[in-house]
């Protein structure tokens, strides 16, 4: 039951990736990146349950924290124009 959900989330990530390429303004691309990060984290947890590998869930936790830092830095860059 987990693998069809993971494939469905991959399709959703592909649709979000189109917005990431198309986005007219930089905040549009940042919204797409943030959404894509959440979908990837959830699909990592799903794959960890599918293959019964705990290391996938650990990678998902670290990926969530690092993508949060990335989003905050890019938002600060968009806001001020410099770091």
């Amino acid at each position, binding site marked *: 039951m987990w693998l069809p*959900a993971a494939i469905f989330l991959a399709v959703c990530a592909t649709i979000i990736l189109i917005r990431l390429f198309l986005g007219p303004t930089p905040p549009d691309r940042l919204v797409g990146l943030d959404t894509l990060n959440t979908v990837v984290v*959830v699909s990592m947890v799903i794959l960890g349950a599918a293959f019964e590998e705990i290391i996938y869930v650990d990678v998902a936790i670290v990926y969530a924290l690092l993508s949060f830092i990335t989003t905050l830095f890019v938002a600060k860059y968009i806001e001020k124009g410099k770091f």
Partner: protein
Amino acid sequence: MILDIITYICIGIGCLLNLLAAIGLHRFPDVYTRLHAGTKCTTFGSIFLVGAVVIQSVSVWVTEGASSPQSVLTLHAVIALVVILLTNPTSAHAIGRAAHRSGIKPARAVVDDLEKEKP
């Protein structure tokens, strides 16, 4: 048996909400409405999907005892869900504030009450 049905319902709701987020990113006109679709829907969908993982893992944990790998999987999935719930609204707020301060107006906006708040 009843846990399998609950798990399937949770997976269905989570996948539907993620699909709605992906569609909403294409259908909404500007950054702020896309922010609604992109962050709220994925947060709510991730609650249901990780909840499905937790339900299945807890059922295996209860039947096989604490030595099974599902016990560690349950705790780490809950930690991942807590991380998502803490970081996703914060990054949404940061994106919205950055978009407004970089001068992007909402589509078809007439009055901007936050104009005087700019530093």
